[in-house]
């Protein structure tokens, strides 16, 4: 069952996931961001597929398919449509400059690897160390959310965060119970729709998708 090749392949995919997360962190253009997001989805789907294959858990095939459908096709398509409609292409600048962000990101990766090290020792075989990568990509996405100004890129970051989680759910733990996965997928879908509604409402109300307009509610 556990062929070294498959293991290496999953590890490769994991590394790819992390790489894409970094790439997203440094990306200024929204279009490329969405493309990267789709790519990430593809990697996720592939890794789920491989895990399903290697552990022969059938429900993981559904998961892989669902991921492909949702995260590679549907969501990027939706987002593309959205930005075309809303006519936003650039995330003008990030809040912290990109080299700094990178530095922070790298330390986050080291941190999460360290954190995951004792757990990795528990886990036998296949998924060794994947928790660390999942954690790192979750934290990187979170970092991306902190540093983005435009609502759209924040949402993409959020979705990428979910990707990281999904990776943890499927690859690191070899799949959650099906009902949970279905629920998660449904929620993500609904969330995206709501995001879409919001984008229109926000734009309608503020004439922009810059979150800087939404800093009125505060204690003073």
């Amino acid at each position, binding site marked *: 069952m556990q062929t070294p090749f498959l293991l290496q392949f999953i590890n490769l995919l994991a590394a790819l996931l992390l790489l894409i997360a970094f790439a997203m962190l440094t990306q200024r253009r929204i279009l490329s961001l969405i493309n990267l997001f789709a790519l990430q989805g593809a990697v996720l789907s592939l890794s789920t597929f491989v895990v399903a294959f290697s552990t022969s858990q059938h429900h993981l095939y559904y998961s892989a398919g669902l991921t492909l459908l949702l995260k590679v096709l549907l969501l990027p398509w939706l987002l593309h449509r959205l930005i075309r409609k809303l006519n936003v292409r650039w995330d003008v600048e990030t*809040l912290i400059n990109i080299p700094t962000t990178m530095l922070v990101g790298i330390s986050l990766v080291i*941190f999460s690897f360290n*954190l995951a090290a004792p757990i990795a020792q528990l886990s036998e075989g296949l998924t060794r160390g994947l928790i660390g990568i999942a954690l790192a990509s979750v*934290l990187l996405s*979170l*970092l991306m*959310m*902190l*540093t983005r100004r435009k609502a759209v890129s924040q949402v993409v970051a959020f979705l990428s965060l979910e990707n990281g989680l999904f990776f943890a759910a499927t690859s690191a733990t070899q799949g959650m119970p099906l009902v949970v996965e279905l629920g998660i997928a449904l929620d993500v879908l609904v969330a995206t729709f709501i995001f879409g509604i919001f984008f229109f409402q926000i734009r309608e109300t503020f004439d922009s998708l810059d*979150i800087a307009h*939404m*800093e*009125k*509610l*505060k*204690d*003073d």
Partner: protein
Amino acid sequence: MDSVSVSPLEVVGWLVQLWIVLGVAGLVLQRAPRLINNVIFPLSALTSLLLAVSGMWALGADPGVMVLPLGLPDLPFHLRLDPLSGFFLILLGGASLGISLFGAGYFKTMAGGTLGLLCLEYHLFLAGMTLVLLADDAYMFMVAWETMALSSYFLVTTDHNIPDIRKAGFLYLLIAHVGAISILLCFGVMQGGNGIAAYTFDAMRHAQLTEFWSSAAFLLALFGFGAKAGVLPMHMWLPEAHPAAPSPVSALMSGVMLKTAIYGILRVTFDLLGTQLWWWGVLALGLGLLTAVFGVMFAAVQGDMKRLLAYSSIENIGLLLVGIGLTIIFHVYGKHALAALALTATLYHSLNHAMFKSLLFVGTGAILHATGERNMGRLGGLIRRMPWAAMLMLVGVLAIAGLPPLNGFVSEWLLLQAFLLSPGLPNSYINMLVPVAAAVIALAAALAAYVMVKFYGVIFLGQPREKVLEHAHDTGTWERIGMGWLALACVVLGLAPVFVVHQLDLVSLSLIGSSLGNAAGNWVFLTPVDTERASYSPLYFLLAVLAVMLLTSILVRHLYHGRVRRSAPWDCGYPAQNARMQDTAEGFGQPIRRIFEPFFKIEREVPSPFDTHPRYHGQSDDRLWYILYLPIKYLTEKLASLASLLQHGRIHLYLTYTFVTLIVLLVFV
């Protein structure tokens, strides 16, 4: 009463229920204000009387215990009526009897809706105070305690349209609440065992506490109850809330509610805590002295009659605290008879203060109704317009000034005796402290006389300072009866000290295990230790003074002619005398203000010699407000503005919080 099957506690329970029913009836009958005035309040007074009687009955009886089916699970309401509670019930009943009777007349002018509500709150207040005295578990105690605070808050803010009154109510309830939390913590320290049942007083009595925790409990209790009693520096609410409340309510608050705090301190210190430490006594003593002098000093410079009385209450609370401190010290050092003496003095003074302060407060109510004026600088000469009120108030004034043969003197006498007999304590510091303390007490008592001369003289004597005072009317019948009862109580308590002390012995015996016993004297001579050491007989004293006076007046009348001529007062050669040339309240207080200048924050506005309409304005504020309360307020505001920085409006910042929290937790896992 002669039926054996009924216990005092049950009777008191019924009376409390009756009060609540009366209160609700008042709310229901709000369209019939006459009924409320002429039926409900007198009935309430009758209930008070019965309560006092049951309290007296409980003094001699074994402690009664009762468990109600209410409360928390595993912690139903426990009630207990022991001599200490019984004594305070007498105090409550006795004072509220007069106040309710007075109220029956006083609230006549109030609109129906307000009156109904007030009637409910008034009776809840009374019921709450009674239950505080009966409570035998922490939860019940706190519920009753806060019911008392809340109902009195609503009573204070009866005239809530006036911003100042709202402010007073706010300050009052805030300090009361902080105090209540402190009391709560005190119970938390004292709880015995585990589970909810650990909060009964009985479990607390058996709890084993280390010295550290005992002291923590005592300090928390002192702070918490002190906040209610108006002990320095938590006194700030008192001079604000008392003037704001309707006068009968002020009377209840000052006369009775403050005593529940004294009750609380006694209960915690001597009953619930198994051991005491000597320095508690020193602390209480020191705090009491400070409070007493502070209170009377500020009373001397007040211009508002109710504020003056409020500060005087602070002084008296200080005296009570001194008594408690002495009791602790003697008790710790095993001087049982002396401890009993100090405790007796404390309890006696509580009772006295309840009577005369209630009398004076309701009296100010009568004045307020007659003139619509609280500022003494606009009163004067009322003795001629309101002879009844003036006469009854004179009794109260003389009593509170500590003059023999009235009641105020007896308790001060007992307290001073306790001081005088103190030498021989094994701690030399305390030995040195005692004479200084006695001196301070004496000073406070003398200043109290000053204050009271000012109070009475400026309000009742002299010429009316305003035209409207010509139309002032005297008190009505209910008011007179109420005040009469309180004045009578002052006289009786003053003349029959031996009887009272014998009753108080039962309390000390149950609380600290010692009493004055037969040493208290025979029926007419009060001799707390023995006849050689000290004795006092107000009855003989009064008889002698009366006899001498009578003799003199007979002699004068018979041997000399009785010709009397009326004429204008002598003008000293300066014909333009008018009422404004008398001392105002501020003027009368001026020497005190000058002597104790550093303690006051004085704002003065003096007219220049060329003003055509000269106006003088002087105000003496409490420095503590500026050096303690305002800084706390500023600090809170500062911290609040720091806290508001958190909520900065930027979502990135909020996400950063989440992020940082997560990272920090992960680092520390």
